[in-house]
C-alpha cells in the first residue's frame, strides 16, 4: 500500500469504516510513519468536534420555518385586498386604547395576519385579512396545505385568549388540494381575543374546540 493510500484511509479509520485487513495494515504503518500520525491527530480532532456538534433540531422543523417565511412572502405580495382596510380615525383611536385583537388587524400597519402551521399539519399555511363592519368584524381566511379531513371532520376557526376561552368564528371545509378561502364574521367582543386558531373538528356533537390545532397566529404580533 502506498504512502498516499495510507493517508487517504485516515478519515474512514476514525469513522470505523475500514475492513479488519485495512485497519491492521494502517495501524502497522502508523507505528513507523510520524507524518501519518500527525495527520491522524488532525483528523481525530475534527472528527471529535463533528461528533459533539451532531445533535440538531428535528428535521421537520425546517419545513415549518420555510412554510412560515413562505406565508410571509405571500402576505407581502398580496396587495389587492388592501381595499378592505378602513382608515377611519375613530377605529384607530379605539385600537390605540384597546391595543390588541381584531382592531389591530383592520387598522394597523400590517398587511394581514400570517397563520403558521403546527405539527398536526406541517405543510399548512394561512393568512387572515379583515375589515370592521359596524360593531362587528368581517374576516377573510385564506388557507393552503390543509390535510384532507376524514369522513365527518371539518375545520373551525377560533378567537382565543389566555385561560383557554374561545369564540368560534365559523366552520368550513377545504378543497381537495387543501386550499380554501372563506369569509366569516365575528362579534365586537372578539377584540379581546388576540389569538387565532384553526382546528380540525370531529363530528361528535361537542361544540367546544377539539384542540387539534392546524394553524395558529397571534394578533398581538401585528405591526410588531
Amino acid at each position, binding site marked *: 500500500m502506498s504512502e498516499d493510500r495510507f493517508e487517504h484511509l485516515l*478519515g474512514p479509520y476514525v469513522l470505523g*469504516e475500514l475492513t479488519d485487513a485495512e485497519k491492521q495494515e494502517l495501524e502497522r504503518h502508523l507505528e513507523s510513519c510520524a507524518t501519518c500520525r500527525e495527520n491522524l491527530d488532525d483528523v481525530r480532532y475534527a472528527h471529535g468536534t463533528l461528533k459533539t456538534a451532531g*445533535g440538531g*433540531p428535528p428535521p421537520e422543523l425546517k419545513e415549518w420555518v420555510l412554510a412560515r*417565511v413562505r406565508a410571509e*412572502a405571500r402576505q407581502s405580495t398580496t396587495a389587492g385586498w388592501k381595499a378592505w382596510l378602513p382608515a377611519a380615525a375613530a377605529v384607530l383611536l379605539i385600537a390605540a386604547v384597546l391595543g390588541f385583537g381584531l382592531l389591530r388587524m383592520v387598522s394597523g400597519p400590517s398587511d394581514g395576519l400570517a397563520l403558521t402551521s403546527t405539527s398536526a399539519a406541517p405543510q399548512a399555511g394561512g393568512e387572515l385579512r379583515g375589515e370592521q363592519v359596524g360593531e362587528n368584524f368581517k374576516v377573510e381566511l385564506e388557507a393552503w396545505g390543509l390535510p384532507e379531513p376524514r369522513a365527518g371532520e371539518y375545520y373551525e376557526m377560533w378567537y382565543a385568549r389566555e385561560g383557554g376561552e374561545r369564540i368560534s368564528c365559523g366552520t368550513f371545509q377545504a378543497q381537495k388540494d387543501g386550499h380554501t378561502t372563506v369569509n366569516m364574521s365575528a362579534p365586537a367582543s372578539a377584540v379581546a381575543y388576540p389569538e387565532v386558531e384553526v382546528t380540525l373538528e370531529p363530528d361528535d356533537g361537542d361544540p367546544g374546540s377539539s384542540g387539534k390545532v392546524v394553524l395558529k397566529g397571534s394578533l398581538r404580533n401585528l405591526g410588531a
Partner: protein
Amino acid sequence: MKRHQRAKRGIGQEVRRAGDEDLIGLVAGGDERALSELYDRYSRPVYATGMRLLGDTQLAEELVQDAFTSVWRSAASFDPSRASFATWLYRIARNRATDLDRRRRVRPRSAGEHGLYALPGGPLPEEAVDAWDVANALSRLPSEHREVLELAYFEDLSQREISRQTGIPLGTIKSRTTAALKRLRQAIASPAPREARGE
C-alpha cells in the same frame, strides 16, 4: 433518501458553493433556497445555544424558528462590514433566547426546569461555543468537502452509502472525507470562529 437530503439535492450548486454573506444577500432578495442553505449550515448551533441557555427542547425549537424567521425579515439590514453572518445570527439567537426566557418567567416553572444560563453577556457553556465554531468552519469549506462531512456526521451515512447517493466512487469518497477532516481542523484553528461568537 432522507427528506433533508432530498431538499438539499434540489438546491442549486451555486447556492451550495456560496459564502454565508453572499447567501444573506440572496435572502434579502427573497431567495428561499438561500435561507434553506443557511438553515442547513446554522440550525445546529442555534439549537445547541437554545438547549444550553434554555434547557428545554420546545423552547430551543422555538428559538430556531424565531431566529431564522428574523433572518428572513431582517436580511436587508445585515451589514457585512460590521460582523460576519455567524456573529449576526448568534446575536439574534441570544437576544431571542433572552425574550423566551423572560416569557417563561411569567409562568410557574415545572420540576426540573431552570432559568437562563449565562445571559446576558456571560461566557457560554463550552458545548454551545463548539457548535458555532464547527458550523462556521464547515461553512468555509469547499462545498464538496462540506457535503461528505454532513452526510457522514449529520445524516449518519456510511462511506458506501455516500458513494451510492452521490454517484462518486467509494475510493474518492474515502480520500475526500480525509481531506475534508484535515481542512476542517485548519478552519477551526483559524481566527474566524472566535469572531463568530462576538468575542
